[in-house]
């Protein structure tokens, strides 16, 4: 019988520092983990536990890339590790991948993305696979807020993305030396830039930013079914059994972590 708690051994083959407490790790695997943007994997370090992370690399590649913030026991240990060290990975988990099949991106829908902090992570997979997943004609507009310019993830890749019909608008929480762009929360970007017409909205980031962004989107006339958000919850099993991640009738690990606002709006404390 398959053991859902068994992970496969994965070797760190590349590490790049993104910010002072976030690193990107690349893992080589014996058996490819096929995933869709929005799904997640469980990373295991015996002695330090297990935790969920959303892959952020190119889904076509055989390796998996995770962008990990040093936040506690397991992540602190991972941050100490070096190229050649081994971890365990199991997955992918989650059903609620960004609903790419529901819309015909090739013909009409554009994509509006609002992300804050680490919420950018799973969307990178979407950007890297844009031509296959969405079609080269789709306009992608991203509003991204970070604490400071130094906290911006993937910043050396922005120039490349801009050439692919991707509009990237940035903001940082507070004014700081050397930053000439926008300051304030992600919502301030709504006052400065027009949101692309005829689009589906994806939101991912710290829970505090969800309500204000939802309000902006609703004012712009987005239907609840066309707004998608990724939920964060504590997880232990990843397969819809342990109950830690339950939200109303759903399991974030199994039915999510991406949900449409239409699914969540009647559930108290969903966001």
């Amino acid at each position, binding site marked *: 019988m398959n053991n859902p*708690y068994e992970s496969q051994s994965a070797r760190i083959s590349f590490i790049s520092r993104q910010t002072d407490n976030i690193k990107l790790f690349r893992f080589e695997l014996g058996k490819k983990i096929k995933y869709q943007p929005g799904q997640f994997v469980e990373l295991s370090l015996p*002695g330090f536990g297990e935790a969920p992370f959303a892959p952020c690399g190119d889904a076509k590649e055989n390796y998996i890339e995770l962008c990990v913030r040093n936040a506690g026991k397991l992540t602190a240990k991972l941050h100490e590790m070096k190229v050649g060290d081994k971890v365990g990975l199991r997955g992918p988990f989650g059903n609620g991948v960004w609903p790419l099949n529901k819309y015909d991106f090739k013909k009409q829908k554009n994509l509006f993305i609002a992300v804050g902090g680490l919420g950018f992570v799973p969307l990178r997979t979407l950007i890297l696979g844009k031509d296959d997943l969405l079609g080269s004609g789709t306009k992608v507009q991203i509003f991204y807020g970070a604490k400071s310019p130094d906290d911006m993830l993937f910043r050396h890749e922005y120039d490349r993305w801009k050439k692919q019909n991707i509009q990237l608008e940035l903001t940082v929480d507070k004014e700081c030396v050397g930053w000439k762009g926008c300051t304030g929360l992600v919502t301030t970007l709504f006052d400065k830039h027009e949101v692309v017409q005829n689009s589906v909205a994806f939101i991912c980031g710290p829970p505090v930013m969800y309500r204000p962004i939802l309000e902006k989107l609703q004012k712009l006339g987005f239907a609840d079914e066309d707004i998608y958000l990724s939920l964060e*919850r*504590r997880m*232990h099993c990843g397969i819809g*059994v342990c109950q*830690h991640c339950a939200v109303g*009738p759903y399991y974030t690990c199994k039915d999510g972590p991406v949900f449409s606002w239409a699914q969540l709006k009647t559930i108290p*404390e969903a966001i």
Partner: protein
Amino acid sequence: MTQGGLEKFVAYLRQNGWPIFGPVFSAEKTEEVSPFLAAHQPKSAHKDGQIYIKEIQKAEDLDLSGQLPFYSFKRFFVPEQECLFQYEKEKLDQPEKEQKAALLGMSILDLKAVNLYDQVFEKDPYYQLRRRNLLIIGYSLTPEIQGNLFEIEYEENILEHLPFDIFLVKTDKAFKVFTGSIKGQRVLEDFGYKDYQHIQYSGPVKEGKLEERMERLRDRLKNHPNPQIWEELGKICIECGKCTLACPTCFCFRIDDKPALKEGAGKRTREWDSCFYQEFSEVAGGHKFLKTTAARILFWYYHKFARIPDEFDFMGCVGCKRCAKVCPVGINIEEVLKKIENS
């Protein structure tokens, strides 16, 4: 089967490597087990003791009065703690093999809980291995089942919806014997007993219509939420988690790594958790998604009466009232369910 026959059957099972566990009356005073229980619910069928599940040597040791054991049989199916694997540096090892055990005297309510475990842990290799090593011998008086919230009674056609290997029904002087699995048949035949009737298991739910009470409770929780119920309960519940320990259908778990003395060695364990504990919904950085006691107690009821019905078409409560018996502040599920239904 006569009482004498049962005595011989018990001896036979023990000789064949089945340690037997069943309801046993114990003179340990209620105060010793639960001072709260003694204070809040002084009326108990056995004034000077309680029924516990213990290993028995003889059938005579069993208490077959039909009173539910204080704790359920949960830990035989979903143990307090189990090892998923052992680690030493990069080496991983599977845990030791499971022991055989026969559970004699499981009531209809406790068997309903097994229906739930069987569904929840259908794809779980640890559960499946343990389950294969259990011999389930159900038992009922006719027709009454004591202390039961949903007025369930013994009737013969209930048996096809219960998971058991062997089932004993108390008649005047003897036991009527049923089997519910090939394993049960084999054990009886090997013992030399043939006077049984086989019942083909047809799933946990009666074909055709869903239970009305379940539908009503789910509808109320999902479509007509009444926050007042939870706010009131939130004011009295002290989040001790005793109800989750006592409840046969509470199976939430956490997964942790437990270090051993040897450098780099230890085991990954799965153990009971409780949605009443503060850490249950806490993520790195300290944010909790279940912020208040009211939110936690709603979570508990919502799981049993909305999420489980959604997943499996039956309720996540077997009506045994054990939760009410252990609650130090006297929260009584029977009253809470009435409040939900009237909201």
